């Protein structure tokens, strides 16, 4: 049964059970909906905007996008500063993350809806950071993010909401969602039986390109990690930006030998687009998967590691 049918059925049931109390029905729907799927639809979010146990968080990459109009009640998180350490290359540390989560008014039982521009790339990256601090099942993505919300001409707000701070404790980071250079190296050297899913473009994967045009962060070798398979991230989405159905996604990844029977590591250039595929594989399909945020900017710069360079590109940096 599709998500939308489920939603309709629930609303109908709730309406039958409580014909006179709309808000309670909506609240009941929200409770159930938010437990069933890692994705919420734009319809669902619009119907549940007023829910008190809901926190909506926008993580976009374009500056000013949030401020010039966001989902009503949404709060703003900047991935360049809020979700990372700004001096060392790492996700936000426990203290910094706890301070952010308290400011956002999120507790462990709060339903968090993340969304953003660029097909939720950075929102998915946010979900991956949240997951490392134990915020997993209660963190959902708005399916398609801003793209569909805007396309459907739904309401946007320019005011920032006032949210009461929470008491989220400082939590140690758990590395179950994260792969390190040593992990991918073990796979590359066939010491470990895992699959690396490289979601960059075919030209980056083959080594024809070191990075897409115009990006600053480069590697000094081209190609991919031995043992990787290539499924560009965009293959998992429909033209309207929503994720494909579970059946379609299973087929997409089964075609390259990924069926959830062995652990997967997702990888890209800086680890942010691969979070999108990490979310699809781990949260939507329930496969065992870790994201390698070092990605090609770490691996392609590392000394003495094996590389597959199908295009034979020779680095000629000056």
């Amino acid at each position, binding site marked *: 049964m599709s998500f939308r049918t489920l939603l309709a059925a629930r609303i109908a049931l709730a309406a039958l059970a409580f014909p006179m109390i709309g808000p309670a029905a909506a609240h009941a729907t929200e409770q159930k909906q938010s437990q069933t799927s890692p994705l919420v639809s734009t319809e669902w979010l619009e119907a549940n905007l007023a829910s008190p146990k809901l926190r909506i968080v926008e993580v976009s990459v374009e*500056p000013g996008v949030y*401020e*010039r109009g966001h989902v009503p009640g949404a709060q703003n998180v900047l991935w360049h*500063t809020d979700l990372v350490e700004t001096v060392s290359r790492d996700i936000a540390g426990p203290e910094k993350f706890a301070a952010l989560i308290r400011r956002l008014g999120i507790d462990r039982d709060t339903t968090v809806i993340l969304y953003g521009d660029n097909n939720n790339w950075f929102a998915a990256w946010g979900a991956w950071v949240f997951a490392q601090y134990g915020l997993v099942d209660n963190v959902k993505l708005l399916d398609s993010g801003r793209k569909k919300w805007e396309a459907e001409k739904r309401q946007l707000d*320019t005011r920032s909401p*006032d949210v009461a701070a929470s008491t989220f404790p400082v939590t140690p980071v758990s590395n179950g969602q994260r792969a390190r250079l040593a992990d991918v190296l073990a796979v590359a050297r066939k010491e470990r039986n895992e699959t690396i899913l490289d979601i960059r473009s075919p030209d980056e994967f083959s080594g024809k390109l070191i990075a897409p045009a*115009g990006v600053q962060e480069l590697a000094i070798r081209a190609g991919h990690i031995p043992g990787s398979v290539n499924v560009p991230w965009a293959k998992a989405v429909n033209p309207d930006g929503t994720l494909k159905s579970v059946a379609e996604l299973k087929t997409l990844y089964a075609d390259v030998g990924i069926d959830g029977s062995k652990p997967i590591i997702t990888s890209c250039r800086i680890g942010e687009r691969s979070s999108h595929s990490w979310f699809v594989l781990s949260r939507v399909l329930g496969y065992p998967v870790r994201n390698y945020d070092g990605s090609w900017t770490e691996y392609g710069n590392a000394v003495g590691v094996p590389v597959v360079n199908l295009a034979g590109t020779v680095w000629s940096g*000056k």
Partner: protein
Amino acid sequence: MTASSLSERSAPGPSTGRLPVSLRVASAALIGAGLLIAALRLSGDPGGSRLALSLSFGALFGFVLQRARFCFFCLWRDLIDRRDPRGALGVLAALGAGTVGYSVVLGAWLPDPSGVRLPPDAHIGPVGPVLALAGVAFGAGMAISGSCIGAHLYRLGEGSPTAPFALVGTALGFVLGFFTWNTLYLASIAEAPVIWLPRHLGYAGSLFLTLAVLAALAAPLLRWLPPADASPSERVAPLRAVFVDRWPTWLGGLAVGALGTLAYLRVGPLGVTAEIGGRSRQAAAGLDLLPARLEGLDGFRGCATAIRDAILTPNGLFIAGLVAASLAAALAAGEFRPALPKRGQIGRGLVGGILLGWGAMTGLGCSVGTLLSGIMAGAASGWLFGVAMFAGLTATLLAGRRLSLLP
């Protein structure tokens, strides 16, 4: 009040244009309709509302600039040559209205200004000696070429013979700016503080301080005002007042302040050099003229000169709208008077333009982007650029006149 005292040349009556009135009005209406249709077409495309808004804001800005002769060079010359403060009061009105408008927007967007964040895209730049140098160069360029970049753009619509050369010079000046950027960045800009007044004073404090400074600047000027017209009861024909007569500069200033706020709310701060700079950078990069990297440049807000991929950009459409609307306004008012350039105009345009371009590139914007939009947003960089610009303008103007090089 006679508008002519504010003008670089005496304002012509409606019948003194070279073209017949009906032809002028018809052409102006045609351009206006073209702008409207273009905006409508753009707004229908997916993601086109930003472009349509940019075109509309540009057109309104060009209309206001032309109607009110909102020109930093003219106001300064009126002030020091004729002790006529009306133009200067107009700019102060723009800054006051815009500062209030920005405070309203910023307070909603970033309720707590005290953290490490800066408001998105606001023109808040590094404050240091390089910014002062950029302001002085920009002011000198204004004195030599006879306008700032924004005013050259609206004068293009009036058929000015100097403006095209000044704008070519500006593009060259930008390329020159790219050459000197890395040296200046490493020597000074990288360590220059980015000062945003609301972070230190809060929104209320910053607003109060800015308005107090503007009032302090306005107080002595008000005393220089010519006595008010004794017969204000003269009937005003509305169409004539809007489309033919020169607007009082304070009205233009209030309109600029309102436009600045609305443009910031929906698209981005007013600025006229991002497109010129971006295209210059693209052309220079295409010819392999640029350093391989411009250190730190793309990290700054302001009239960022990022290389353009798209054919239509918001700032490009803003400029196109500005020039087209200024042409339409000039036609309707009988102020479109194209002339063949004289050798002096070509030379002064190019030399002044190069200084304008270098100053705008190095100062991350011009009298519109850095000064107006910066001060409205509470940026100390806007004030420093403004002071340096007027200093450079005065010194160059006086020196140029002494040497009989400038009128």
